[in-house]
């Protein structure tokens, strides 16, 4: 009892998850609906990204997770309910179970959505360009209202679903109220710029340990998850493979490499990219910044593999370049999406946002995925409700 345990789970994707906890008690034969004998383990709280990984693994293995734990549990420090060591075969679900599960899934999706939304700026919340007009702001908010207004959730019996929807909508309405007119949009932009510069300056002063660069399909280091505000600020742990020793000049202006708000991300890359894959070292800071920007443009134009190569090189050269590091994660995420691995993609995007909280693309990608997840789960629950 109380003995610390460590379990290494290797997922079908090749990722390994370290589960750390203590033994709560020994389960006798036949206990827990005949699932015994075994041990009941209290796990330390799981980072959100690990939850995503497990979910991804279960879904790719064709196993439906059991009714979700209370989302508050999964997001707050107290340990989640003990899990068995091995993922068990799920029994065929009856309609009632299905309903409970669908409700739980929706709660979880909304909770996660709310979580990522709380990190977004007003434009990201409404899925708008920074140059949006009155008309575009209204249209965006109108479209989101059709999906998220609390009236759309009154039909669900679960109090929790309705409360979460309420919270999501409050964020949207506040963003709308701020952006509804031109003056408001200008003020919001100024505030976003100031915040960005503030965080860039902080990074320059603090020079945190280099964030992890993740080669695809290798065990991901535990990502400090943004689910909890405090956790998010912890510097990432040292990476398993040290970066190649090409430290950028100490004066490397991180802020300069961060894209400007006013830049139009949607513009396709007009620069030829054929020979950019081969790094030419050493480069001046300005040149490096250009190459990162170029990499991001290549990414935007849809050439993910290409972009990944460029950005990886830049990230290796300057492990403090958050734009490049986040870009790597973004490119990985996009590739995962292309391959249909939504869970992996979400994890990559979350990682990008953790590395660079002001990263536009990451925030938008995540918003998109969250919305998708919510609407899928609502669809399922509504279908079940109609059956009854």
């Amino acid at each position, binding site marked *: 009892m109380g003995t610390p345990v460590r379990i290494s789970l290797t997922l079908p994707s090749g990722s390994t998850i370290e589960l750390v906890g203590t033994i709560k008690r020994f389960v006798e034969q036949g206990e827990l609906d005949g699932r015994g004998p075994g041990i009941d383990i209290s796990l330390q709280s799981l980072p959100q990204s690990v939850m995503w990984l497990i979910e991804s693994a279960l879904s790719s293995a064709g196993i439906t997770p059991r009714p979700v734990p209370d989302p508050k549990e999964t997001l707050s420090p107290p340990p989640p309910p003990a899990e068995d060591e091995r993922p068990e075969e799920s029994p065929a679900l009856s309609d009632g179970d299905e309903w409970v599960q669908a409700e739980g899934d929706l709660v979880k999706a909304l909770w996660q959505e709310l979580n990522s939304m709380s990190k977004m700026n007003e434009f990201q919340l409404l899925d708008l360009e920074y140059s949006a007009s009155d008309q575009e702001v*209204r249209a965006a908010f109108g479209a989101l209202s059709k999906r998220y207004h609390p009236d759309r959730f009154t039909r669900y019996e679960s109090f929790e679903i309705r409360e979460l929807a309420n919270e999501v909508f409050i964020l949207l309405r506040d963003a709308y109220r701020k952006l509804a007119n031109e003056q408001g949009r200008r003020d919001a932009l100024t505030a976003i710029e100031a915040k960005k510069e503030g965080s860039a300056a902080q990074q320059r002063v603090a020079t945190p340990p280099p964030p992890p660069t993740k080669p695809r399909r290798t065990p991901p280091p535990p990502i400090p998850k943004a689910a909890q505000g405090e956790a998010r600020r912890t510097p990432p742990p040292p990476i398993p493979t040290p970066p190649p020793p090409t430290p950028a000049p100490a004066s490397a202006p991180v802020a300069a490499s961060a894209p400007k708000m006013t830049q139009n991300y949607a513009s396709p890359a007009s620069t030829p990219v054929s020979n950019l894959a081969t790094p030419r070292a050493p480069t001046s800071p300005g040149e490096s910044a250009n190459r990162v920007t170029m990499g991001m443009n290549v990414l935007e134009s849809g050439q993910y593999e290409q972009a990944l190569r460029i950005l990886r090189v830049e990230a290796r050269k300057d492990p403090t370049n958050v734009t490049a590091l986040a870009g790597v994660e973004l490119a990985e995420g996009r590739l995962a999406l292309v391959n249909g691995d939504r869970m992996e993609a979400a994890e990559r995007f979350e990682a990008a946002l953790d590395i660079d909280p002001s990263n536009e693309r990451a925030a938008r990608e995540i918003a998109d995925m969250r919305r998708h997840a919510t609407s899928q789960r609502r669809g399922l629950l509504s279908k079940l409700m109609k059956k009854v």
Partner: protein
Amino acid sequence: MARIIGIDLGTTNSCVAVFESGAGPRVLAGSANRRTTPSVVAYTGERNSGDVLVGEKALRQAVTNPKRTVFGAKRLIGRKVNAKDVGWFARTAPFRIVSAPNGDAWVRVDDTPISPQEVASHVLRELRTQAEEALGEPITRAVVTVPAYFDDSQRQATRDAGTIAGLDICRILNEPTAAALAYGAHRVREGRRIIAVFDLGGGTFDISIMAVENNVFEVLATNGDSALGGDDWDRVLIDHWVDSIFDEHRVDLTSDPVAMGRLKEAAEGAKRALSSERTATIQLPYLHAADGPEPIHIERKITRDQFNALTADLLNRLKDPCFGAMQDAGLVASDIEEVLLVGGMSRAPAVQAQVEEIFQQPASKAANPDEVVALGAAAHAGILAGDDEEATLLDVAPHTIGIKVGSTGFAEIIKRNSMLPVREHKLFATNLDDQEFVEVEIYQGESETITGNRKLGQVRLGGLPRGKAGTVRIKLTVTVDVESILSVKATELSTGKSAQVRITASGGLSADDLEEIVEKRRTEAMSVPRPPEDD
């Protein structure tokens, strides 16, 4: 999923409708294909027998049974008996209006005090039955409309009426919003349109300004007067005639309920006639037959100009709410593309002229002014039930919410016309050294002092850290959801200690009262006479 019906619970007439997937809302007619039901309840049979007639049947016997025929319950619901307009109403109503122990306005029939919630519940039950017969299925849920300018206790009292009638009220919807929803839904076209809904009903006046775009109905501002309606125009006529009869015959008709009932009916008729005619005549033979040797016969003539002169004050009261709403919406008259008239009293030419003057444009009339609110309620029911995934309604909080500061000051936290749901924060500091607790009192209203506003509730946060006055800071978070339910949280910033309350307005009846009434109804249904009450 079971259907949700939409009910327009009007001061004079009520109407019920339902949303049909794919076809939109439609009115559910009652017997003899009547599409609206008079909001009248008559207590008949033995004293306290609980026998009631509702609607047309009740209206038909009103003249012969004036003291036991209750109308206008909506004017009393959730209100105090000492409110000014309740006093006016009491003076002209042939039935008695009394004070409940908590000061609420109730009616007294025979010797039994009856809450307006109970009266209204008879109307709701009648509509529910009507809907069940039309649809051939049991109905338990409804969206019920109220004037936008109803306060929280009037809304809650309306909800309670639903509970008594065995209806779960999924949402209380504002009448002008409902009207716009029904009206605008047929006219979806490209671009954003700003419309004003001018709703002057039997007992209330609402003005709402909305933006309609791509099936999203956004209320920009709402304003009104919950004590101004067509009945007030009647009252002016009645008062006018009561005075002239007193001058001529030295008889005060206000103590003769039968005469007052007939006079009211005549006044309504004359008012309606004046909408199309230049003059109207009333003839009331044997109006009063007390003391004097001769019974009093009355014949009076009134011209439209005379009538308009008498009611000029009422017409004037329509202005402020309209300008207030435009100001809150940040608009001027020329921004408004269309003004939609709703409610029976908006048929009066003088009212229409006033609207034209305020908004500098002719107003359009709803095709079916008596049904448009119920249709809107049904449309919203369709949204809530998931039968309509397109239309979206963004409504506002009609009143400002704030807290008491100092001895009588009122500090605004949530401004009126904020889109719901809404959450606002405000920081406050202690005003005593080593203050141990704070008690935050929450008020609703537009006055700058709390005495002019209504208290909704309070939250107490104890165990404050010691500190000089003004150094201990408390963050107050107020949230109002789409159901207008208010939650208030007070957090002390240095310790993070907090206290939270969820405030549901009281409609005047406690949970126990409600349970008792519901139980009583059940007993009545089994025809067991009820012992008289003596409170």
